């Protein structure tokens, strides 16, 4: 027994002495919180903003975003657009991969072809609804050879991209990781499936290189890349990411100085606002993430398809007090939203006004008005011939405690305002949630969508017949026609007409209450006073650290 005791004491002593060790205080290190793990560092696999942020730290595409979210040259020093707007010629600068190889036009050709063949969630971004790269959809469906994709490299520093239709936001689209280059030689030297799974299997050409990374790890370290073409303008030496799952934990880690930049939830925001010192560090960053209710309108769905009735959908949408949701439950600066396109997003190129700046334009169908909601509800009851509607409302509960609060508040509001509607809350793991949405076994889903590029079309294409097959099962030929005209049709080249056609599409969507928009999310962050120059964007890459001083 005495021996065991001695042994324990020894272990304890060893631990304690080991702990005295130093916290290295490096002034040139930025420690940043991540809300969740990165899914993947491979653009063909990644689906989340965390992964995109990491990729953007390490890899430069043709263009990059400046502090205001405008596209400015990156690997492409300049570009020419043909008169019909369908051919882009990019002139690449002398940039190097971290292993010393030149960044060439072939690297882009390789990466784009590969993306079409291997990507799942983001294969569409090359296709007709977004970038309109020639033949992209055919290549994705494996109906055409990858060589037919509209991208070519006449020489190693010139890249020519052919489009099916003019795309006004094409240069800003090039900031998105799906369009980043991959070093072909390096990629082929790796064992299959290992690309981007460790610092050794990932090659950067951007501002930072990976020094410590493992899939699923909570601790990611990056370091300044000295062979970056713009290295002289990067002053940050080290960038550390720490995955923190609890908002309370994030707040304490910030107070402690363990992290310099954290995101916090509503309860913590309210606490910080009452704290004179901390409130100086608080910043509310508007995002382009729209939180909405998605109604399953398939008449064959498992609750008899009551939601195929437009009046029932309108009743529910009008029975929700969105102001109360954001002021009482979300409380992180999110804004109540009454349009299908989030606020603070997609400014008009001429007027500079956001697409959804006028929140009242559809107030006759999306608002909070109990009287009106009950009128719609009475109509629905008469049409469907029943008084009680028992509906499942599903949501993924790994998205933090905010959505859990929102779900409960919606249940309480709808059940109170529409007597006869019963909402059964069904939280579930993300895997099951995604499966339920894809296999059509739900009534209402609390879901969200963040813009991939700076154009309302990133939302509107979700509800075309093809896009909606995956969720709402709603189909409207007029709507489809407008979207086609705006993407590949006649309107693609006419900025103003296209802009107003998109309002028409949005109106069809909301008059039919295909979805019930809830709020445009915001991100409440605490940032150390001595950290300057972190760029926040509402599109594609949420945070950029290249300009940190």
């Amino acid at each position, binding site marked *: 027994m005495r021996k065991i005791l001695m042994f324990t004491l020894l272990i304890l002593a060893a*631990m304690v002495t080991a702990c005295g060790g130093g916290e290295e205080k490096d002034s040139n290190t930025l420690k940043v919180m991540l809300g969740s793990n990165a899914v993947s560092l491979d653009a063909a696999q990644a*689906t989340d903003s965390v992964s995109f942020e990491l990729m953007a730290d390490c890899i430069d595409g043709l263009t990059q975003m400046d502090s205001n979210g405008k596209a400015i040259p990156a690997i492409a020093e300049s570009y020419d657009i043909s008169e019909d707007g369908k051919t882009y010629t990019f002139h690449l600068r002398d940039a190097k991969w971290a292993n010393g190889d030149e960044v060439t036009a072939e690297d882009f050709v390789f990466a784009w072809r590969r993306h079409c063949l291997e990507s799942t969630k983001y294969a569409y971004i090359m296709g007709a609804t977004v970038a309109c790269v020639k033949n992209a959809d055919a290549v994705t469906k494996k109906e055409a050879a990858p060589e037919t994709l509209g991208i070519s490299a006449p020489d190693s520093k010139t890249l020519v991209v052919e489009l099916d239709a003019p795309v006004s936001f094409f240069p800003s689209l090039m900031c998105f990781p799906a369009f980043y280059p991959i070093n072909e030689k390096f990629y082929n030297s790796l064992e299959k499936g290992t690309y981007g799974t460790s610092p050794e299997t990932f090659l950067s050409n951007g501002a930072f290189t990976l020094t410590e990374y493992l899939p699923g790890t*909570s601790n990611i370290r990056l370091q300044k890349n000295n062979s970056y073409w713009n290295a002289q303008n990067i002053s940050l030496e080290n960038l550390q990411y720490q995955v923190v*799952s609890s908002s309370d934990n994030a707040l304490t880690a910030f107070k402690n100085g363990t992290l310099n930049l954290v995101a916090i939830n509503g309860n913590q925001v309210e606490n910080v606002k009452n704290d004179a010192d901390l409130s100086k560090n608080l910043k509310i960053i508007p995002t382009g993430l729209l939180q909405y209710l998605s109604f399953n309108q398939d008449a064959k769905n498992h609750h008899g398809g009551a939601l195929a009735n437009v009046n029932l959908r309108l009743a529910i949408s009008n029975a929700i007090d969105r102001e109360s949701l954001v002021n009482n439950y979300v409380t992180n600066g999110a804004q109540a939203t009454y349009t299908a396109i989030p606020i603070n997003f997609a400014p008009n190129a001429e007027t500079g006004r956001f697409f959804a700046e006028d929140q009242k334009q559809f107030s006759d169908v999306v608002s909070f008005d109990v009287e009106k909601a009950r009128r719609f509800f009475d109509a629905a009851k008469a049409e469907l011939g029943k008084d009680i509607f028992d509906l499942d409302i599903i949501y993924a509960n790994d998205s933090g405690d905010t959505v859990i609060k929102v779900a409960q508040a919606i249940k309480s509001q709808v059940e109170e305002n529409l007597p006869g509607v019963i909402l059964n809350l069904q939280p579930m793991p993300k895997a099951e949630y995604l499966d339920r949405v894809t296999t059509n076994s739900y009534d209402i889903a609390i879901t969200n969508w963040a813009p991939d590029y700076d154009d309302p079309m990133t939302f509107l294409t979700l509800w075309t017949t093809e896009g909606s097959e995956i969720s709402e099962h709603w189909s409207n030929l007029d709507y489809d026609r407008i979207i086609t005209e705006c993407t590949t049709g006649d309107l693609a080249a006419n900025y103003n007409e296209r802009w107003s056609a998109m309002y028409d599409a949005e109106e069809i969507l909301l008059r039919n209450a295909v979805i019930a928009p809830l709020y445009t999310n915001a991100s409440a962050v605490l940032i150390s006073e001595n950290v300057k120059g972190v760029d926040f964007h509402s599109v594609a890459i949420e945070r950029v650290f290249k300009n940190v001083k």
Partner: protein
Amino acid sequence: MTKYVAKRILMAALTLFAITFVLFVLIRIMPGNPFPVERMSAEMILQKRLELGLDKPILVQFADYLKMLASGSFGNGTSLYNGAPIKPIMLKCLENSFKIGVISILFGTVVGLFIGIVAAMHRGKFLDGFCTVVSILGVCIPSYVFMIFLQYFFSYKIPFFPYFFDASNFLSSAVMPALSLSLFAISTVSRFTRNEMVEVMNSDYVKLAEAKGLYGWQLMRRHVLRNALIPIVTVIAPLVVDLLTGAMVIEKIYGINGVGKLMVDAIAGQGVDYNYVLALGIVFSALYIAIMLLLDILYGIIDPRIRLAAKEG
């Protein structure tokens, strides 16, 4: 004895095979796709299923899987981490969880035994009551709440330990999670030790030994502990498996890249990653079976009566 052990090992291998099969079948019943399906159309899903060979009869799939296992690989992930080979990632996570688990088991058992013995020797007195309170507190406070308290006081108020887990500074960052994990072990072990010891101390042979003039540690070690150990070992063994296989919540709070978190990610992440769930399931079961096997053999060493019974059977 050797024959008995050999037989047990063979049985263990068979059990592991059966477990692999059961898991293999069950995972295919689970809701959720084996790959991320966010915004994927039905035809894309179908194509993906073909690629993974999920259209083949299940026995063929199982045979393929066994072939792969036999070649020493756990295959590639299906939804986690872009289909990278599982083995290196799993090993890294196992390493982290194991190290912390081992520390907490050693600590928990030693402290638990100590508290239990002290309580038993002073039964009915103040120290006994005190030890009871300590052990009850241990079961009442969830380990993650204790972890939060530790983190709050010893990383935030007094910044002595790192606030998040840091693999490059392993020892000091392992202290708090190991301590909070060992809490449950301490209370379980101490409670059982005390009760078993009190029972043994009342038995006639201990009284006889006492009458012969043995006392204190001598008596405890020679007569009481040895007999009280059997049920205690039964309690410790499952704890060992629990602690080694990671504690998801603590791993999440403290940012440890461990197997508990990996398992939850594999089941509840973007999709149900069939291969990760299987690989982790097989490793966990192998561990469990190995420990149970060891336990059975240990029984024989501690209590010769069981060895005799085994021989008869």
